[in-house]
């Protein structure tokens, strides 16, 4: 059986673009910056509506973060946008000092996160950005799962006073969450209720986890699937409640296992109620060129591997 159905597939970055277009009409304090990747970030709608609130910075990401901090000090709500690699790792000190430590109201919004940008290969496939950003005190880290959720998250973070990292991607993926949903930062969403194993997934791996739950059900196993769209602050309550019932778990993310969502969950559980846990993520490796689906399969970021890991977790109970 299908737990969720969908009519279209869209890229999450287009959800970001749609959110920005909404903000251009509804929040006059929002300004957007981009380091020469307007098309990739889907900013055309925002720029068309509000050209006076868009600032091209050229390929100079360190300056883009500094300019954003300055705009924030002046009361604007800057959305600094580029690819995830250049918006986080490349400019870590700018973010650390002028955004996080200074508590400036800057939204760092990055596309092409993870493996699924595909053909460009390892230089562009950052798999460390969640870890880099979640380590910064005060930084909110969000990785929505589909177009609708990304749009809602883009709109919601304008209302949050403080630094945010919003991560999304390039491939088209099923649109299965409700249109015009209200996005609540830090509030996990229980997508499928189950009693045998908890699957905590973020970003593109949420859909794969739903597929995994369907395969598991055919084997008579009831998996609970929870969408952890906000990695920080982590919804500890939702996680603890689920594992208290299922007594084992899997984390799933398009990121290094080191420093990712699974790390955060493991840290929580080892202090409260440790249960057998398995990790779906990239295991200490860089990416490579290929079609997104090929890469996700090779690195085990798909439904089949989630099923395998779920069975393993259950067997360790």
């Amino acid at each position, binding site marked *: 059986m299908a737990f969720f159905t969908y009519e279209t597939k869209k890229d999450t970055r287009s959800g970001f673009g749609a959110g920005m277009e909404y903000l251009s009409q509804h929040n006059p304090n929002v300004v957007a910056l981009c380091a020469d990747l307007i098309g990739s970030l889907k900013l055309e709608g925002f720029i068309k509506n509000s050209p006076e609130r868009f600032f091209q910075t050229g390929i100079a990401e360190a300056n883009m973060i*500094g300019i954003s901090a*300055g705009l*924030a000090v*002046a*009361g604007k709500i800057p959305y600094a946008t580029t690819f995830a690699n250049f918006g986080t790792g490349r400019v870590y000190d700018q973010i650390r000092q002028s955004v996080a430590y200074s508590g400036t109201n800057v939204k760092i919004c990055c596309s092409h996160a993870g493996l699924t940008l595909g053909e460009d290969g390892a230089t562009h496939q950052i798999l460390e950005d969640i870890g880099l950003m979640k380590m910064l005190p005060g930084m909110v880290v969000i990785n929505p799962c589909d177009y609708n959720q990304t749009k809602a998250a883009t709109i919601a973070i304008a209302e949050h006073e403080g630094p945010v990292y919003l991560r999304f991607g390039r491939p088209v993926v099923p649109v299965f969450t409700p249109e015009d949903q209200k996005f609540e930062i830090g509030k996990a969403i229980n997508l499928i209720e189950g009693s045998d194993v908890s699957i905590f997934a973020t970003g593109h791996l949420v859909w794969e986890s739903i597929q995994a739950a369907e395969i598991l059900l055919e084997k008579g196993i009831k998996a609970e699937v929870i969408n952890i769209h906000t990695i920080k602050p982590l919804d500890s309550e939702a996680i603890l409640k689920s594992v208290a019932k299922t007594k084992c778990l899997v984390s799933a993310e398009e990121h290094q296992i080191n420093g990712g969502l699974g790390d955060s969950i493991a840290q929580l559980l080892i202090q409260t109620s440790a249960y057998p846990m398995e990790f779906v993520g990239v295991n200490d490796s860089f990416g490579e060129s290929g079609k997104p689906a090929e890469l996700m399969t090779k690195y085990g970021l798909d439904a089949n591997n989630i099923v395998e890991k779920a069975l393993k977790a259950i067997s360790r109970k």
Partner: protein
Amino acid sequence: MTITQLKEKSKTYRKKILELIFHAKAGHTGGCLSIIDLLNVLYNHVLRIPSPKDPSRDRFIQSKGHAVEALYVVLADQGFFPEEDLKTLGQYQSPYIGHPTKKIPGMEQNTGGLGHGLSICAGNALAAKKDKSDIKVYTILGDGEMAEGSNWEAMMFAAHYKLDNLCGILDYNKLQISGANAQVMGLEPIKQKIESFGWSVKEVDGHNIEELVNTFDQLPFENGKPSFIIAHTVKGKGVSYMENVAKWHHGVPSAEQLEQALAELA
């Protein structure tokens, strides 16, 4: 404030900086004495800051955050916080730490790591332009700091957006922590470099109060261009044994050295 009064201020500030660093047993003495005349003219002649949170205030962000003791002395003198509070400088739980933080009234942004201030100021200046506000934005950069690539990104940006409400000031004492700029990483020809990035540049003696006042009064140097002041300064200016000696970058005077310095400044 008259030129004579400003000159007196500089003397007083120098003494206070030395006493403060002596008391805290830590600080960036050389750089503080290098920028103090710049800060003096900025805060007592140039900047319009009715109160630290006044939305219409001009903005100053010290990009070379390590020379924070000079800024503390000047901000206390502006009445933004009691001078008495500075006695806790560098102590556990004191808000007066070794680099600027927004927790201190009058400090706009946390700085310390180099190469941040010019970008932040350019962002601030851009916002002021968009808001059609006449706020002016200023920053002081260190000469060693000019090797940071982000400064040159900010240079391109400020010229591209015609931020003539922005003024960069270079504390050009020709020394940085491990020696002479020329040995560590040469800056020259710095004036031509900055001009070629689309800025309007003037050179001044960074310790000549009259010259500084006259130069700041000419801002913006050209409409539609950001302004840059290359202030030729002396690291450790005003204390004979500190002047042009790189080790005073982070040196703390002994009691005898303090006494001699205060006598020289009397």
